[in-house]
């Protein structure tokens, strides 16, 4: 019987040592990279809704203000998903026979709420408040992206704590006049930083980074 290990096994041993070392460093690194991909954060993933609601059509084509439907955004922590009745304000008149809208009509007739699929979610221990952001001049587009160009809404921002804090530490980049919050195309007129500072003063913006600002 020959020797158990032959010279070529030296190379194999070296390779396996390398693989183990690379794995030890690579797996955590890989996981960390993975966690930062849009996929892991649920971004760039258009969500199909029970009714094919098209924001492009309603906001861009029809020019309906975001706050017509999301009408508690400036007075409540929740932006508000419209009640069925609100849909029918228009759709009892227009497209009132469209088969696409059948679930909406059924919801109203049977008094059974629509079940929309959630796109944006912060963890349970995070208390986000829409009203203070909107009233201090943070535009919808800053967090939700170009909803007016989305056939189906997708998560446009990562909603991680570091992402929140980025703005809470330097809010100037994301401020605009309060009357422009729903404007998807608003661009600062002049030096963005200077405009941002001016707006922060004008809108009386005092961002907070204390833990209990969001975690209670």
């Amino acid at each position, binding site marked *: 019987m020959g020797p158990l290990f032959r010279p070529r096994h030296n190379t194999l041993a070296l390779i396996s040592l390398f693989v183990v070392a690379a794995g030890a460093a690579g797996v955590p690194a890989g996981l960390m990279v993975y966690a930062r991909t849009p996929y892991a954060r649920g971004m760039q993933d258009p969500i199909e809704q029970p009714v094919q609601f098209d924001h492009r059509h309603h906001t861009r084509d029809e020019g309906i203000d975001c706050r017509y439907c999301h009408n*508690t955004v400036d007075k409540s922590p929740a932006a508000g998903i419209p009640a069925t009745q609100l849909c029918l304000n228009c759709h009892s008149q227009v497209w009132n026979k469209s088969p696409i809208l059948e679930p909406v009509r059924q919801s109203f007739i049977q008094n059974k709420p629509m079940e929309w699929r*959630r796109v944006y979610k912060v963890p349970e221990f995070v208390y986000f408040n829409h009203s203070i952001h909107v009233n201090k001049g943070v535009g919808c587009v800053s967090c939700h992206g170009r909803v007016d160009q989305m056939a189906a809404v997708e998560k446009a921002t990562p909603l991680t704590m570091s992402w929140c804090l980025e703005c809470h530490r330097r809010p100037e980049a994301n401020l605009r006049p309060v009357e422009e919050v729903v404007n998807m195309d608003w661009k600062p007129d002049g030096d963005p930083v200077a405009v941002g500072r001016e707006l922060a003063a004008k809108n009386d913006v005092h961002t907070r980074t204390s833990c209990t600002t969001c*975690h*209670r």
Partner: protein
Amino acid sequence: MSCDDNKDARTKDRDRRRSLPVVDKSVAPAKGAAPADGGNGLWRSQRPWRSIDERDRQGAMPGAANEFPAGTMDVDDNVSRRGFMQLLSVSTAVATVGAACQKPNEKIVPFVRRPEEVTPGNPLHFATAYALEGYGSGLLVESHEGRPTKIEGNPAHPQTIGATTAIEQALILGLYDDDRAKQLRQGVTPIAWRSLLGQINANNAKLAENRGAGLRFLTAPTTSPLLLDLRRRILERFPQAKFVSYSSVADDGAVDGARMAFGKPMVPRHRLGSADVILSLDSDFLAEGPEQTRLSREFAARREPSPRMSRLYVVEPAVTVTGAMADHRLRMQGTEVGSFVAGLCSVLASRGLEKLAPLASLSHGERKWDMKWLVALAGDLERHRGSSLVIAGCRQPPAVHALAAALNAALGNVGVTVEYGAPLTPDPLSGPAPLAALAQDIAAGAVDTLVITAANPVYTAPADFKFAKLLERVPNSIYFGLNEDETAAACKVMVPAAHALETWGDVRATDGTVSIIQPLIAPLWGGIQEAELYAAFIGEGDVGANKLLRRYWQGQFKGGEFDAHWERWLADGIVPDTGVAAEGGVAVDGAALAQTVAPLLTRTKSGMEIAFVVDPKLYDGRFANNAWLQELPHPITKLTWDNAAMLSETTAKALGIETGDIVEVTYRDRHVDAPAMIVPGHVDDTVTLPLGYGRTGVGVGGVAKDVGFNAGALRTSDNPWYDRGATVAKTGRRFKFAITQDHWTMSPDGRVIPPPAVEGPIEEVLKRDSKFHEEIEVRRGPLPTIHEPVDYSKQAYKWAMSIDLNKCTGCSACVVACVSENNINVVGKENVWRGREMQWIRVDRYFSGNDDSLSMITQPLMCVHCETAPCEYVCPVNATVHSDEGLNEMVYNRCIGTRYCSNNCPYKVRRFNYLNYIADYTAVRELGMNPDVTVRTRGIMEKCTYCVQRIERKRISTRIEGRTIADGELETACQQSCPTRAIVFGSLNDASSKVSQQHADPRRYDLLHEIGTRPRTAYLARVRNPNPELHVPDAHGAGQEHGKGEHE
């Protein structure tokens, strides 16, 4: 450094701490030593103690130096190594598979039609009322998208004035109680409300044949205009029917006493705002009865240290919340109070109150009390004619109430501090007497149909009625109740009642003001409302309570648009101009009264006294299934999840009983086994038994079942509160109480801790350079430090709290309010015993003196938000950090549960979730959680946050309006519930804020000031206002009151 060096250093450190001025006072021995104040007899500087154990021990309590009470960290589940490995592999596998799956598909479900007033995410508040003993407390209930979550007092209501009691706070949990009766049933057969209505209708026709002679209603006392109107209509249809009202804790003595004194039944109404001297005759007016919230507020308002400060004398057998607030407390058997008050009458008569002359000769038996005390009291009352008050408690017999009324009349107090009004209900008596008449009717077979809406009479009725047996003789018995309790088991038909927060109705406050009760939520389990059940007997059972109520009030309403007024009433919580004025010109016929009362005062029986008390938590047992109340430490004994046979130390010693011994209490051939407890300040030769425990019925909910013993089993109709002739005997068995009194000791090294509060007589406090101020001075102000203190003055707010111990009565409403607001878990008896209770507020209370001169200070303690917080330095994951405004923040999602912070907290205010208590929550229970506060799971540390969720909500709403939070606009949950307004919260950066003023108060001091934590919660020292005549500056007692036996 060697081990020995270490030990040396520790000893030195301890010595250094001992030499600090505050601690110095504390180590003065309790008894027999010279007073520490150099002979100033008014100054009380005895070492305070929390339990008799602690008092008698000279050194440290065993285990007091431990981070947590003994048993806290015991692991009780027995997991083997193999079992653990199996669990580990399975959970790893599940986690791997789970992680690979798609993210959960979460739904958003909006309204179909959004009610106009609802903004999802913002709570609404609705005014309603809660009726207890027939009288209403006005409440404001917070509702999140239709789910009531928190109860507050209605500031517009004359009795609650914005505050609540612990019981009212706990109503929320009662609403979501999964043990409530859910099914209307006949025997064991579920039936529909409509079919029951059909049967009632058929039965009505039969009853009408003999004008309703066999029809009886057994109701709780009520002042509801709607229910009384329905009663009138039922009696119109069935003139022979009878309504009996019953409550096991009825205040019949007051009504009958007024009848003796004034010739007609009347109900006293008290006003403490103008009372300079108050004498309580066994009345716990600060924590009992429908006036308690308002009386607490008025009492506290007069306790501001000033020459106008009121003085409170209390005569009682066992320490109550009121007794603990007394300037002078005389412990006395309940059956002796009559003789005492007769004695008081004769002393006052001899001091020139001619109106009392006919009462002067009343025999007052052998004088078993301190005559000097009585004379000093009489002098004080006499000096304050027209501004004093005598209150008799609901447990005292009519004779005492009558004499109290005579005293008030003779002292000129009637119309100033007390007035008498006609009863607001047609049946003023609701005690054993009316129930006896009903029992007789049933025994005679005269009752065909009995409708019971009173609270669980089978359990609460006097034992001699044998009510459950009696009910078997009633062919048709209908019980209307919240639970499948003892009475439900004895009745043919069980109608599940709607909870108070699911009900339409109305109720009067003690001054007659009507509140409309409006539901916060549709009945969760289809409960029926009381008005609907009544209406079934006039054929209107299907009309609905809302319609019945509106119809009634529309009929009463004159002038103008009804709908607009109705909406106004609902929104305000009161119906204007419905108050009933008290009667003027009441006069006492002294001679006639003397004749009536004289035979009642003769003492005929001897033997040990048995006394029953209403439980401050479970009341008469109707809140027994409420875990918040069960786990609330008793204000005096700090007992949770149990009741105890309470005895004085002397009596217990004589009988050879120790706390925890199970004793057999025998009274008139009936006996119960009860665990005994020695209570400081309890009167000798009396055993006190709290009612409301020992529920054993089949359908009794899981929380209430088998907790404590049923003292009601000994209660008889002729002596519902006090009697003599009881015996107490040791059985030899032992019982384990879950008492929180020695938990969470603020003690750096296990020594008995220094007194946390200083007490002084008012004269001392008003003198600026007195001993009192010296004492205070060493407990506040800057300490030398090597750290530059953080400057908070540039921040928008500098949050801080102050607690005025002069106002705090220890009623514990704040504890339950905090539990409700902050989603705090209930842990159960076993875990309380292990020291795992979760309440963020603990109300420490410290006794001093001996049984005869007992005084007590309560001190609510929650996180004090130290500016240099010791907890923060030791957290390895930064889960507890400081905010820019000085809050000590607890970040649950970072916490990994090392518990280092709790170990390092000198105040011991941190609470740890040892188990996953929320796992037991039902889906319905979850509806009552506050959505603004994270629900914590196992392994998370938590503590008072100064209600940061309220701060942030208010901050956001005011920032949107472009302003800052005004002082008083933001209240923490404890502050809002506090009946006496002892707790104040606000910003120290606003110099004019109430909290800033309190922090600058001469009575302000900091807890454990010497360790330099700079707490944001400041305490205001307790001040007493003793009668100078009762204090003798002697070398022995350090200003002790004269004890028993020092007769004049």
